[in-house]
């Protein structure tokens, strides 16, 4: 009786062990499968030669009126000239979900056609849902000519005076 009992528990544990073992192997196989699948869809990491600078020459400082916004489709940005004469190069991509925001002259603001976010001339959110101001591109002014480096957009949490570039 006693002997019998131990033998059943023994086969029992052996069976449980084997079942678990198979289960483990199965899970390992599944994990590998998923891994392979993911590596198939994952983009091939073609390391872009770190941020190749691509400078766009926007034009002479004086060609931009105070308080005006000029679109540069080629560089995917707007050049905004504030009332104080300073420049901001604003990304045209909405910070909400990536739609292209048009500048609406009559309302003096950007209005996103997707979920009605609005931004003022500095790119600051005046109506949500956009969670942060429009991204900016670095602006430099050399010999009174405005140039914008469009290689990488810079995210910002809020507007700061330091973001505005002035010629003189």
């Amino acid at each position: 009786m006693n002997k019998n009992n131990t033998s059943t528990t023994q086969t029992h544990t052996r069976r449980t062990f084997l079942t678990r073992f198979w289960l483990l192997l199965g899970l390992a196989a599944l994990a590998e499968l998923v891994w392979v699948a993911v590596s198939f869809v994952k983009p091939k990491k073609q390391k872009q030669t770190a941020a190749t600078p691509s400078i766009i020459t926007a034009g002479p400082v004086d060609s931009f009126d105070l308080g005006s916004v000029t679109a540069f489709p080629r560089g995917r940005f707007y050049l905004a000239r504030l009332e104080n004469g300073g420049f901001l190069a604003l990304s045209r991509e909405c910070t909400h979900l990536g739609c292209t925001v048009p500048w609406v002259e009559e309302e003096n603001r950007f209005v996103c056609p997707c979920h009605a976010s609005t931004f003022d001339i500095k790119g600051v959110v005046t109506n949500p849902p956009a969670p942060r101001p429009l991204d900016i591109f670095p602006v430099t002014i050399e010999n009174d000519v405005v140039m914008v480096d469009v290689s990488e957009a810079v995210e910002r949490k809020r507007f700061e005076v330091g973001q505005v570039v002035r010629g003189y």
Partner: protein
Amino acid sequence: MSSERPDIDHSNFLKRLWRSFTIAPLVPEDDRERKRTVLNTLVLHLHPPTVPMATIRYTHTWGLGGMGLVLFLLLASTGLLLMFTYEPAPGQAYGSILKLKGHFLFGKFVRNIHHWSANAFIVVALLHMLRVFFTGGHREPRQFNWILGLCLLLFVLFSNFTGYLLPWDQMAYWAITIMTSMLAYIPLAGNWLQEILRGGGEIGPATLVNFYTLHTTLLPILFVIFMPWHFWRVRKAGGVVLPKAEGGAGEDNPERVHTIPYLVVKEFAVALTLIAAIFLLSIFVNAPLQEMANPGMSPNPAKAPWYFLGFQELLMHFHPLFAVFVIPVLTGILMILLPYFRYGSDGIGTWFISKRGRRMAVISAAAAMIFTPGAVILDEYLIDLQKWLPGLPPEISNGLVPFVMLLAVVTGYYFYLKRKYESTKAEITQAVFIFLLTSFIVLTIIGVWFRGEGMKLVWPGG
């Protein structure tokens, strides 16, 4: 003549070919066996030999589940044809659709059938879900089939989404942009998911191939696995849900009729009517195709297809962390848990549970029809939480705060109902469900008709 052997079949070859194809190799001897052979057809792999009489009334299920199957078959067959002409590359996709419309015999017609079946699939799956819910078909012992149904609904929505990306027109391009940008707001896994789905940092050829594969291979396979599973669970539960006792013939002791012909005839009637309706629609109304994708300019207004406009409206009122992640995930969890609350069995199989259930349902729908437009208008013209709560990050001021307000309204409504009506758990759950459902329908209506240029509120046509 007398030499003709009775054991040799003297009919001509074609007849014998046909017979070998249609008749079981062993022709049964007696009536009983012959009946068995007839019953042993494909139909009875799906259905039991007899079904409760009460379940085959049209008004019990409206045939909606069966319509889903018919639409799936229509979509699979037209989809197969479309695959022969479609080219999944950003440079070619749009042109291949134009070519399909212009140069192929019935090309437009096939595309229209695919389009309208897909739209109808959404309507049918949603109505079917509501039918199940309002007749208590999700309650014990059918809880798990509700979950399978939710999976199917997800597949229907995702199939539609991946489908309308393929023409690479303006709607396609901006829908992909918005959808893949939404992924970035999912905590932890968001950026990873986004990169996988886009096939890189930016939207391009790899993105289209990903969506094409999902649409034409992965999702159909999932349907083919989940639909039979879903049907099998219906059969395992003893057929569709029935009232406990309806003139003595309730769930426990129903009066039964033969599946063939009584149920099958009705199923064919529904299927043929549906197919006729889809074909008629496809003859007269063309599937839309916008201008070719232009990454430089979003259409204004940029609207999703009608079935996502309720969701798009939600995006306008909540920080994306909540609109994209918190609210959908919570909704999903609630939908999964819905059949597992302990309801008891009263009112099962009866539309809207009871008289009181019906009254609470109507009141809830009316309440939502007042509350939701009110809230949208207030948020549009009055409420500006970001300005009122300066210094708070937008996740809080435009996300958590309005979300908690919404939660308070729903909870308040729940307790109001609880105090006002001495109702059962099933009735009160149904009422809250209807409140949320109606709100979503109202949001969809606002999105479809009351949003104009710049997504501002407008009067339709005005």
